[in-house]
């Protein structure tokens, strides 16, 4: 395959991936696409198959059926991507007897086209002071930083991170998220982040896929996913009774609560809050405050997985 073909290929394209452990089918005809420049979150409950998916993508596990391509290469040929793909796993994969600097120098030997020095990545990840510490003496968080530092030695087109925020303190999480954004914006690096820490993914991801019972049940841009979900709008106004009668007729609007004095709570499905405001004001209601409560990734995730469970029970 020519390098031109590879440079045009999607960072990740998975079709009908199936993986069984004995009789247990972990992945069932899974489909996934990660586009160039995306920060793609892969979320799922424990045991949903996130790590197995990543291991199949990276050629660490054999799969039973399906087609997997990373930058156009099948998993067994990833080494031909010339460092185009790097991954960081849940447990930092480092030689415990090496120092941080040695671990980075070791990674440098395996890096096809290094763009940063070990000292630079140490500084980027804030681990310069641990440079001469042996990896086995580091905290989990600092081992994870070292692992990420290894990935930053080169200039990969795709970075796959399994539970990237595990073991990091709040500052560490912010640093890693800032790094991901920086690499994504400055170098166009695509990311696939597998995590169950939905609050962090919500802050950083442009795309999201929900893995449930071995299948991707939803995959889209994050805004699209939220637009498909209902949101809450809290309206502080002078006449709740009249406001109720006005909004009742608007499609996609459900009154949730009007019991509190001067406060009306609505559930909106694909309705713009500005439109509600305009309707109320045009009919003489004095709107003092509009509080928009978008659905969280957490609620989105739970509503989708619950819906899938219900559908499965029904079928």
């Amino acid at each position, binding site marked *: 395959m020519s390098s031109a073909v590879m440079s045009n290929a999607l960072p990740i394209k998975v079709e009908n991936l199936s993986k069984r452990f004995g009789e247990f089918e972990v992945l069932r005809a899974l489909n996934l696409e990660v586009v160039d420049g995306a920060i793609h979150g892969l979320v799922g409950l424990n045991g949903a198959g996130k790590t197995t998916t990543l*291991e199949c993508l990276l050629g660490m596990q054999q799969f039973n059926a399906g087609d997997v391509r990373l930058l156009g290469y099948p998993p067994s040929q990833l080494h031909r991507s010339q460092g185009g793909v790097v991954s960081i796993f849940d447990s930092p994969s480092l030689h415990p007897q090496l120092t941080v600097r040695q671990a980075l120098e070791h990674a440098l030997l395996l890096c*096809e086209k290094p763009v940063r020095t070990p000292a630079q990545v140490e500084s980027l990840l804030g681990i310069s002071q641990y440079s001469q510490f042996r990896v086995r003496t580091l905290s989990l968080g600092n081992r994870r930083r070292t692992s990420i530092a290894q990935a930053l030695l080169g200039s990969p087109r795709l970075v796959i991170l399994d539970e990237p925020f595990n073991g990091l303190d709040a500052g560490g999480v912010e640093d890693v998220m800032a790094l991901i954004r920086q690499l994504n914006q400055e170098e166009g690096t695509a990311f696939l982040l597998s995590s169950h820490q939905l609050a962090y993914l919500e802050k950083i991801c442009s795309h999201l896929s929900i893995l449930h019972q071995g299948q991707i049940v939803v995959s889209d841009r994050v805004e699209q996913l939220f637009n498909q979900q209902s949101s809450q709008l809290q309206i502080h106004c002078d006449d709740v009774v009249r406001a109720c009668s006005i909004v009742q007729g608007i499609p996609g609007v459900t009154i949730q609560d009007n019991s509190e004095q001067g406060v009306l709570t609505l559930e909106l499905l694909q309705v713009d809050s500005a439109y509600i405001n305009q309707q109320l004001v045009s009919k003489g209601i004095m709107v003092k405050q509009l509080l928009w409560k978008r659905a969280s990734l957490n609620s989105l995730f739970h509503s989708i997985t619950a819906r899938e469970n219900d559908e499965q029970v029904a079928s």
Partner: protein
Amino acid sequence: MKGFIAALKAEIYVTLRSQSARIILLLPTLIILVRAIVVKLSESSQQARDALLGQAQIATEGSNAWGQLVDSFSVGLTFLTLSMLAYAAWSFANDADTGVIRHALIRRVSRPWYVVAKLVNIHLLALCTLALLSISIVIISALLWDFGPVVEDGYELISSAEIQEEVMLGLRLAILPLPAALAFGLLVSVLAQSATQAVTSALGLSLAFDVFKGVLGERAYYVYASFQPSLIDQSYLQDVSRLVRGYSDVMIDTQMLQLNEWVPIPQMALFVVIALLVVQRKSV
């Protein structure tokens, strides 16, 4: 090929900084140094006792350096083989345990080249250990004893040149199975589910063969491990040890010598091929 070079460089980088590699490098040499000193002290005390009893003129048979040199090689190679076997078994399985193998496989190296790089690195370590062991044995033997022909009642039974020739043959035949042992260790490493399982399996199988090879009789000669110096040693080095001490009842089995020459390398190749096939489908 570029992936292989990168993997080999990375392997050597880690080995040079590895405590276990240093232990493997020094352990056989330390053992033979301690052994030589203990033997010399024992000989000296024997000579002192003989002198006190008026029997100082009786020469002890161990006083010729050749016999001590061969014994030291026999002990040293036994420990070298066992420690390198354990290291080979630990190597790949440990990389899989710690996950470091994933970096190499994803970034730059194909699975077969990764295994080959490991095999070459293990052989380089074995070569360095063997070189240090050999130099140490020659120096300590020369310092503590005298090299010379085997002489009895004024007759030269075997000349130094003949002894040297036999020792070289014995060493060559004893070292020939080493690559097969290393390849066997690596194969076990690739097959095992963990580093602990790999090391215990490789050492266990090797020691079990040692115990049962006597029962197998001549059939044991179709296994490379029959020819390596071991705890229950049947290698040609044992015969050389007796030969250089002037024992005339040493019977050289030419068929065994031929099998010693021809069995280990094909078996090594077989182990490597199986390891390369297994590693292609192994979950890491």
